[in-house]
């Protein structure tokens, strides 16, 4: 394992843990932004430049901001008085730990680790664009439709209810 991977993994995991355990919601959101940035860096390490930048643009630039807005709109910016974890948190923790254990065992046991990455291929943005406009044109259109629907849906759901 290269040093850069270990550093990035450590940052990502630490910020993810922080995002899930910190008391203050805004801190959680900021830690989440760091996780996203760390993942983007990992994508860059895996030669997926375009996805990495898209990840930063969408997640750090939009989703994190959206979450921050939601926190402020639901008055989550004050630290909660009661416990931040639900009453039966132990069960959830155990389940999550078990999921990780099972997955880890499976990864350890599989022969996938023997795979060797092919020599670094450079993916140009043009190739991705060509692919999106030909082979994946239908999914692209569907995602466009979905985003439009989500836009309208989000606006309608969050709209102030008319006083009856």
């Amino acid at each position: 394992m290269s040093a850069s991977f270990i550093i990035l993994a450590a940052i990502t995991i630490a910020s993810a843990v922080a995002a899930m355990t910190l008391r203050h919601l805004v801190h959680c959101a900021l830690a989440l932004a760091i996780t996203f940035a760390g993942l983007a860096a990992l994508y860059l390490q895996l030669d997926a430049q375009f996805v990495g930048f898209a990840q930063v643009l969408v997640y750090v630039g939009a989703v994190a901001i959206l979450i921050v807005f939601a926190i402020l709109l639901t008055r989550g910016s004050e630290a909660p008085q009661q416990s931040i974890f639900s009453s039966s948190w132990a069960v959830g923790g155990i389940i999550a730990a078990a999921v990780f254990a099972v997955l880890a065992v499976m990864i350890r046991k599989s022969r996938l680790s023997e795979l060797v990455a092919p020599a670094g291929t450079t993916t140009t943005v043009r190739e991705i664009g060509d692919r999106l406009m030909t082979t994946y044109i239908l999914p692209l259109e569907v995602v466009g439709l979905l985003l439009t629907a989500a836009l309208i849906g989000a606006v309608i759901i969050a709209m102030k209810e008319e006083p009856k």
Partner: protein
Amino acid sequence: MTPLAGYLLLSSFLFAIGLAGALTRRNGILVLIGIELMLNAANLNFIAFWRFGPNPEMLKGIIFVLFSIGVAAAEAAVGLALIIAIYRHYRTTNVEKMNSMKG
């Protein structure tokens, strides 16, 4: 070069953290953040498999992740809008108190 297992372990750990958060936190927004983390873990998986897979020039992993990012953005928008709507109605974002669908 880091072996594939490293990325897979990292991704499954992120997934587990996200799951733990979604299962244990009281606040609905945090649950959503947990789900968001799980999605990202899955994306990392796709990219890793794409990079280590037999023919990376097919770009399948990248395209899938691009679509997944798009869908996740939509999901976050709608999810947060739902939480805001619920907050307006019940004055709380605590998922333990949202149980009017109780059977």
